[in-house]
């Protein structure tokens, strides 16, 4: 078809959107809410992943040694841990050193430890601090170390990360449910808008059919109408997400400088792609549905 024809379709689509004003606004509105939510969740997830990587890389495994282990055996234990392929760095922290650290951490409350300071009464244990070579291996390595004779307890940062992930997963499922419901209603509203458009133009459609307009010539304006609704519903949340995330990043940078966030340009690239595909998809799906049911060409 000629370029001019496409302009004609576009003109007809916009006319129709204008004519069905409230319905158009409602359907675009729901697309906007749906995609804004989806985008927010994506940003949240990217940052959760980013943050947990950061946490994982900072926190090492701490393996506590049993009381019955002789000091002379510590060397051997350290060697065994060091020989594990994923263990990158192994440090021995003696009970004395641990007590000193604890005292430092307590600061003014340091006097609480009075009376525990000699070798006999020190309640703390010798421990190893281990950094793993790959963050995915932390929990496997921790388990391996835990199974060594003489090791009574192992703590590792991934526990924190795992909890974080559990929380994120719950949020994600709830969010996904929400978005499905919203996406479905967005599609329903677009379909309904197109249905109204078909209805308000039934006379034109009847004439077009009787003078020999092709099926596609009749369909295109409605498909484009759905598409335009979807695209408007995508551009608004994209602009909104970009601006508000930029604002959040700036705020966090100034107020919580140690909290790492992904720069907007990095997350937005994926979000732009996914939101456009979804917006366009919702629009076309919605209009195809109504065209099939009500246009009957």
């Amino acid at each position, binding site marked *: *078809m000629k370029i001019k024809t496409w302009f004609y379709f576009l003109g007809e689509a916009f006319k129709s959107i204008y004519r069905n004003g409230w319905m158009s606004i409602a359907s675009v509105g729901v697309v906007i809410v749906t995609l804004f939510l989806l985008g927010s969740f994506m940003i949240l997830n990217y940052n959760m992943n980013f943050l947990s990587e950061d946490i994982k890389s900072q926190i090492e495994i701490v393996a506590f040694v049993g009381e019955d282990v002789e000091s002379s055996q510590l060397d051997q234990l350290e060697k065994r841990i060091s020989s594990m392929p994923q263990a990158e760095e192994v440090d021995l922290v003696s009970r004395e050193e641990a007590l000193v650290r604890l005292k430092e951490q307590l600061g003014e409350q340091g006097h609480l430890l009075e009376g525990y300071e000699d070798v006999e009464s020190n309640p703390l244990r010798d421990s190893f601090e281990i950094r793993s070579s790959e963050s995915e291996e932390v929990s496997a390595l921790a388990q391996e170390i835990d199974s060594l004779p003489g090791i009574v307890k192992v703590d590792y940062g991934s526990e924190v990360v795992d909890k974080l992930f559990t929380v994120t997963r719950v949020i994600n499922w709830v969010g996904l449910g929400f978005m499905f419901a919203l996406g479905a209603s967005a599609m329903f509203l677009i379909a309904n808008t197109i249905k109204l458009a078909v209805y308000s133009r039934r006379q*034109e459609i009847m*004439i077009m059919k*009787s*003078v020999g*307009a092709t099926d596609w*010539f*009749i369909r295109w304006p409605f498909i484009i109408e759905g598409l335009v609704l979807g695209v408007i519903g995508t551009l608004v949340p994209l602009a909104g997400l970009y601006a508000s995330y930029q604002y959040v990043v700036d705020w966090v940078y100034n107020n919580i400088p140690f909290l790492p966030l992904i720069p907007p340009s990095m997350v937005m690239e994926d979000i732009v792609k996914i939101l456009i595909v979804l917006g366009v998809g919702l629009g076309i799906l919605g209009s195809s549905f109504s065209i099939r049911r009500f246009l009957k060409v």
Partner: protein
Amino acid sequence: MIDFYNVYKNYPNGVSALIDTSFHIKKGEFVFLVGSSGAGKTTIIKLISRELLPTKGRVVVLGRNVARLKRRDVPLYRRNIGLVFQDYRLLNDRSVYENIAFALRVIETPGKEIKKKALESLELVGLRNKAKVKPLELSGGEQQRVSLARAIVNKPALIIADEPTGNLDPETSIDIVNLLRVINLRGTTVVMATHDKDVVDRLRKRVIELEGGKVVRDELKGVYRPS
């Protein structure tokens, strides 16, 4: 040009609208379809325009078996046929000219030709001076002339009109039919379903009469109701 071979049409609700109908219309003929209400006139027109398909038998129009037309080819087929209805079927939110231009635009007529063809067609029906008027500001007869202008704008080989004078007074009816006659004289085949005794009796053209879905009379230079 139009050949019905033993055509049957049953509607989904079980009504047999046409029963073993056969007739043949040649190029350039002017034919009235008459018969009481429910006799099957509109059904014949819808079979010709391929809005309906025959249940049994063959409908051949312009050398094509309508039942064999591919979906894709139906619109192109319809461009050979000008349709006129009792209710004019005009778009009341745009001008007379726009109504004609619309019919050309939706079959992708090049922009340059649209204006020329539309004005020519309005000239022929004598409404060139009303091009900018909206249909509802016109009389019924004028509206039907606009609809005729639209039907002929693409120079179809065939015009089929379903009770085109059904809403018009006798004098206006004659005007419309005279226009159809002019169009017919220029070589276009005309088939007109009608209840209009005056018109049929005055023109003395071929008359095909239906009754209960059957052809009961087919005569040249016929009248509405034979005495």
